[in-house]
């Protein structure tokens, strides 16, 4: 549905091909079967100019499917069909039916699917097939290493991470994952998939309630930020980890960030500061010891940052920062001293209609 649907013709992979240059219709082995041509109708649309081999293989595949044939030649043909189009989920489904019906060697199937994934790592069907085989074997022992190898070629492969999370959760293989993540972040501190995996591991093991864990993670983030100040992932992780409990909850965090502002400023730091101030305003509604003056001051600082981001530091998001500023002002019931005029609106008054 997404980028995997682009029209790149994939290089052929020769794995388990009984016939390469001959059409099946000339083979004795297939003489008993009448191939079934594709029924595109008299006036086809989106008609693909299949190669002769493609038509041939799929004409016979359709014949097998029609008869629900469960045989070795059917099994072998699925490999041919997959080689021609690894996204044909009907073929994969049929292959799985045959794997079970013919009691095929699942270890060999693991070797097969390993090779296919190496060639075509961005395909949904191949990963789902691997998952099925692992489940049938009830053996995840090769998975973490295999996925690590795929990730070494593309450290952000979404399917690979999905499979990895499934294996870890299903078979409780949490022990070494944080280390794995840290190694990846050493390689590339901007790898957002790795930051996500960090969050995944911690939330499913120690959790983020323990203040010692939170402090450790804050230190980790800040040290990565010092190394690469414009790394949005690190800032998002910091906020994401703290947002449920409140950004103002860890003591001294605001101060640490204000310190960083002098030497390691970025639009992300400023946005984080805004979030801290907004959080402080929201919490001050509950606290009685936060005076009106203090609230006004926090609001002023927050609105200043909105203006700075909208007009100078993050102008691509101007519309958003202006909205946030208006929204915060409106919620807090008062105007900041910067006195930004409201956004020019239509002369027509009244509610905007967005049925």
């Amino acid at each position, binding site marked *: *549905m*997404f*980028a995997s*649907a*682009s*029209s*790149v*013709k994939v290089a052929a992979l020769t794995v388990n091909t009984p016939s390469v240059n001959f059409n099946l219709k000339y083979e004795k082995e297939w003489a008993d079967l009448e191939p079934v041509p*594709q*029924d*595109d*109708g008299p006036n*086809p*649309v*989106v008609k*693909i*100019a*299949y*190669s002769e081999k*493609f038509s041939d293989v799929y004409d016979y595949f*359709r014949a097998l499917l029609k008869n629900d044939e469960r045989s070795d030649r059917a099994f072998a043909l699925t490999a041919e069909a997959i080689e*021609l*189009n690894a996204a*044909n*989920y*009907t073929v994969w*489904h049929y292959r799985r039916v045959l794997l079970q019906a013919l009691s095929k060697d699942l270890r060999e199937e693991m070797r097969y699917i390993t090779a296919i994934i190496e060639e075509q790592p961005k395909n949904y069907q191949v990963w*789902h097939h691997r*998952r099925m085989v692992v489940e049938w074997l009830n053996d995840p022992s090769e998975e973490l290493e295999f996925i690590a190898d795929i990730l070494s070629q593309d450290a*952000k492969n*979404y399917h690979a991470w*999905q499979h990895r*999370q499934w294996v870890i*959760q299903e078979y409780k293989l949490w022990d070494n994952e944080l280390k794995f993540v840290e190694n990846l972040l050493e390689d590339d501190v901007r790898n*957002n*998939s790795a930051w*996500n995996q960090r*969050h*995944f591991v911690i939330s499913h093991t120690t959790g983020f309630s323990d203040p010692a864990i939170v402090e450790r993670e804050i230190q980790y983030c800040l040290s990565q930020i010092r190394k690469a100040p414009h790394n*949005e992932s690190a800032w*998002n*992780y910091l906020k*994401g*980890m703290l*947002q449920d409990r409140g950004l103002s909850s860890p003591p001294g965090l605001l101060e640490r960030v204000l310190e960083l502002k002098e030497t390691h400023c970025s639009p992300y730091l400023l946005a984080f500061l805004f979030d801290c101030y907004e959080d402080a305003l929201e919490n001050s509604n509950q606290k009685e010891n936060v005076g009106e003056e203090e609230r006004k001051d926090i609001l002023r600082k927050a609105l200043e940052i909105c203006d700075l981001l909208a007009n100078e530091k*993050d*102008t*691509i*998001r*101007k*519309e*958003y920062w202006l909205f946030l500023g*208006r929204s915060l002002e*409106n919620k807090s019931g008062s105007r900041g001293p910067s006195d930004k005029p409201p*956004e020019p609106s*239509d002369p027509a008054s009244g509610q*905007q*209609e*967005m*049925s």
Partner: protein
Amino acid sequence: MWQRDGGQLFKKNFFFSFCVKRAVLRCLFVHFLLHSSYQLFVINPSFLCFRPALLREQHYQYLKKGLRHLSDAYECLDASRPWLCFWILHSLELLEEPIPTAVASDVCQFLARCQSPTGGFAGGPGQHAHLAPTYAAVNALCIIGTEEAYNVINREKLLDFLWSVKQPDGSFVMHVGGEVDVRSAYCAASVASLTNILTPKLFEDTTNWILSCQNWEGGLSGVPGLEAHGGYTFCGTAALVILGKEHMLDLKALLRWVVSRQMRFEGGFQGRCNKLVDGCYSFWQAGLLPLLHRALFKEGESELSRQRWMFEQQALQEYILLCCQNPAGGLLDKPGKSRDFYHTCYCLSGLSIAQHFGNMDLHHEMILGKEENRLAPTHPVYNICPEKVSQALQHFHRLPVPYENNPRSSHPTGRPSVEMRAGV
């Protein structure tokens, strides 16, 4: 030329040099950032005058041909042929190019051959039903919008198919024996709502499952636990809008995540944090802003703009027109990549989103370049033109909701559909 934000008017020559510089820089930046291609965008005089042109005629020829014939390079999409129909038909409707009656009828007949006897649509004749080509087929038929098109859909069997892929935890597998991810919920909700076979039971627990896909980043992942991703975020959010449950998301966090996906230099959108820009996210990501605008409005947000979405519409249009067009027709991911119908569809869909604010009652257009660049508006939930959505809803809502022939459903009698919140 138009007014810059804040109502400041630039002098024509300053505007010219500033914007040419920014536009040229934008394109150069994307090139140098990525690829070895020596061929930059075609130095078309219209670009240098900073009136970038949508290459309508070229795109039209590319689409017209593809609707009939595709090279063997498309063998890899042999299990996605309804998608090819949708991508091409939707691109043509955005370009406001009429579909000849004969072609429309041929598409109907082809999609009928893709329909599975057990319900739903498959990637091609004789294949198994799958939610993605089902979504694409229903959308394509709704674009055609004739009685013949609507009549292709076997609604009773479609409902059976949806039940057959429904999981106890509220999710859906993409096909029997297939994988789960949030795309399936969107595909199911989209077809069920358009064809009026939606019942509350069908989507029981689906809302909570989708909500569990919203992560620490604020966006949504394909399945709970994974990284937030534009495509999955669109699917989850749009599905919740259809189910009337979008307010249950952390809308503020989602808004922050999606606006942060617009690239400050390229102007286009990335699919995930710290990844590269891609033209297709012009729809998956930017298309979230209309959904969120409406959701926030429904929540009582009073400070929403009445003229603009909360992303830089001009910058996105620049990225698409200057960096994503193939001079021979078709659109693409980024300079250096090859054209395809998927990117043609989603770049044009994103361009439409960027050009049109609001809906039929409150509409504000912002067309970069020539007026001829204007595309038809698209519905941000279904991504077909809004008139086609209302027409389909009108047609199918005259029909009764089919009986639920599913043994897992404890109500064997048909039930009326939930109030439609398709938001047209």
